[in-house]
């Protein structure tokens, strides 16, 4: 009798030690796979962009086909890891809000002035639905233009910021 498939067999992570990730002179990612094939430009995509930032990284080639998956960035060689992390930082821009200076709302639209891990910023939201609160005080915000911001745990912000935030979440 045939055995049911083992789902673990369905996914083949790349052997991280035998992958080579570099940046070419066009500032694109080139990836050499263990089978010797090279691909460029390669776009790294997080499978869990909100929960597992350094794990399960899918590598897509120019036609958006997956050439392989990396289970954990930590498995990569140091130099490769640095290049991949750098590219991921470029591809995913989601500043962390560290302080809310002011938050003014009119008719559902709110204007925010904040400090973030990437500097001071301001943005507008069109409704409260653009704010998602997750477990552990984590808050994700998407502004009018499609930019995203994160608060890892809003309870840890200063009292003034918390008070302002709590009017919205």
């Amino acid at each position: 009798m045939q055995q049911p498939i083992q789902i673990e067999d369905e996914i083949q992570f790349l052997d991280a030690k035998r992958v080579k990730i570099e940046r070419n002179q066009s500032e694109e990612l080139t990836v050499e796979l263990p089978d010797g094939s090279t691909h460029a430009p390669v776009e790294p995509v997080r499978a869990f962009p909100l929960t597992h930032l350094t794990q399960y990284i899918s590598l897509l080639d120019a036609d958006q086909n997956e050439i392989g998956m990396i289970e954990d960035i930590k498995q990569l060689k140091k130099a490769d890891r640095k290049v991949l992390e750098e590219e991921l930082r470029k591809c995913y821009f989601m500043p962390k809000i560290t302080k809310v200076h002011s938050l003014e709302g009119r008719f559902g639209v709110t204007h925010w002035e904040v400090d973030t891990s990437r500097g001071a910023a301001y943005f507008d939201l069109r409704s409260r639905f653009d704010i998602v609160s997750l477990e552990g005080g984590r808050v994700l915000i998407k502004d009018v233009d499609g930019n995203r911001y994160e608060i890892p745990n809003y309870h840890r912000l200063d009292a003034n910021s918390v008070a302002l935030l709590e009017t919205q979440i």
Partner: protein
Amino acid sequence: MNSMGRGFSRRDVRRMAHSSGKRNSAKRLEEEMTILEQVPPDLQSRLKDVLSQQEEIKVAISTDLQFDGTYGKDWVLVTEKRLIAFNRNGAPTPEVQNIPLEDVESIEIRELHGNNIMKVRTQAGAVEVARYSKRFAPKFAEATPEIESLIDKVKPEALDESKRHRKYVASGKKIRCETCGSPIPRRSDVCPNCVEKGKLIFRLLKYALPFWRVSAPAVLIMMVVRLVDLYPAVLSKQLIDDIFVPATQAITNGQQPEPGAFGQLVLIVLLMVGVNVFTMVASAIRGYMMAWVGQNITLKLRNDAYQHLSVLSLDFYEQRDTGNLMSRITQDVGRLRDFISEGLQNIIGDSMALIYMCIIMFAINWQLALWALIPIPLLIFFTIFFGQKMHKVFHVLWKHYAGISTILASTIPGVRVVKAFTREKYEVGRFRNLTDLIFEGEMNAAKLWTVYHPIMRFIIFFGMIMIWLVGGRQILNDQLTIGGLTLFTNFMMRFFMPVQTLCRMNERFLRAATSAERVFEILDTPPSVADSKDAIDLPDIRGAVEFRDVVFSYDSEKNALNGINFTVKPGEMIGLVGHSGAGKSTLINLITRFYDPQHGEVFIDGHDTRDVKVSTLRKQIGVVLQDPFLFEGTVADNIGYGKPDATRKEIIAAAKAANAHDFIVKFPDGYDTKVGERGSRVSGGERQRISIARAILKNPRILILDEATSSVDTETESRIQEALGRLIQGRTVFAIAHRLSTLKHSNRLIILEEGKVDEIGTHEELIAKGGTYAGLCEKQMELSKIRAL
């Protein structure tokens, strides 16, 4: 290092925000949103070294991000000769990239998460020149074709056509206001900043104008009622001052009260009763009058809106979702009625009441009147304060209730999945968590309610105390009568309601104005496909169709049809083949004139479709769609939809021709069966045949079959095919199908690709040609082999 050097400091941002205020953040955006921004002086001086003389900056765009991933302003400048990028990379002075336009092979925009990167590709490789957040994406999208056209001037035809960027056009959904640039709240498409409240309300009142004979007296009655309403308080003042006080004084002095006193007492009490009866009757009459006016306005507005909606072209519907349009005709119109018949009247009435009270109080004793007004600011403050708190609490509650609905709406229909995966406990847990939150929220609301009223009462009590104290002292100093004091305390109790109404006045006006705008938008939109003034009736046609160099685009971004030419003889059946998005449905939309082409002409029997009346054209065209729409009503009603005067006999004949008769008579109610909304009680194949019967009965010269057999099983399909075979005889037919076998009756096939006619000819010709169609046929043959296995 320059102040501009590090982009926005926090102070900058705050200064800009504060100096401008919210309303003007739009202005700030405007300055940054042009593609020829003001270049700061420090960069200009550096430019001198780079640019040759007479070189002119054509494009100057700033970013809001730097390459190190922090917020900051970098620049991309383009002249007619070169592209210059200033990037700071955390260094004090920006690094300059100088790329001659003649080296540029292409401009690329990388769309990433939360930011974009602009790259310039040259022979030597690609370089990143700008990184910016999504806020600036429209600006860069607008600048890119501009830069490309500058490159064209340096070396014509060099850029790869396929990599070229199209002119930027904002998507149909309004996110930011077109006039002021500030964001538009979700669930509304009206910018609250730009709503011209006054104008809209005035326009709304025009709808009330025809009923002025009723509404004007109603307003008058109300103003009188509000005044008369205060009379009992004045009467009780008289009662005390003119009767009770002299009487008690007389009694304490051992004398009899005046003999007429009792008569006066009865008179005043009767007056009080009379006043009350009067206000009651007058209010009832006024209420009825205003209800009449309100309902008349609703009637007119609702019918006008729906009538105009039916005139509007398809593009209007496509840009808006059904729920939105529905709520305009149901809710918004209702809200406007409430505003005219109640809201506005209450505002007028309550302001009048306040004014009357003030006049009376000041007339009696102006010093005490001033004291009496002290609690009003407090009332206003707490009403607004609690209003905001309440809003917050209720929003949270509302979100939780919505969560409960979501759980119920997914687990009740999905109960088989829940049980099959034994997740009952998990679902119950989720539900319980939410009900716990609701409990908490409701208790928070209760807390507010229970605090709110006592506080309001306390403020009023505080006002009373003040009146007792100040007024009492005046009584002792003989500056006030006891009746005067009771009148003041009485009025104090009456302040509360009008103050509350007036606090919410602005909100009410705005809500009404928004609703008015939404309704008036329907009324103000002209139909994009309208009969021209000298449109003629289309005579009975034979069914010849010609497309002459037709270009059509839904959004001016991409052409859906790009120069279509073909001629179809009467009675010919044409199969339309192509990938989704190739333009098949668009082509059909132009035949039925749901849209007009931007360029070129569509002829039917030699008549330009734009020169004939739309209704006479559509009367001669029949449509069978993939997912046919049946309306609420009986099967017979639906078959006769296109021919309201059809006899029963004709309906049965049409059903027979459509292979629908047999299953219809098996329904317990036969042709009288109600199909329910969207035909839910009738299966897909049955609906399809009913819709074919509908088309047969209409007997059109031109017939359109849009994927008419794609959603049914094989056996039903053969029956539908048979019915279609009968339907298409002697008519010009355009058939869209993905399964090529369904096009076997076609005389000719048109293969569309990216809005162009790729191939045209008979099945045999196209197979012999060995092009796109032959390829498609081969693929489908393989697929059907797999199915056969």
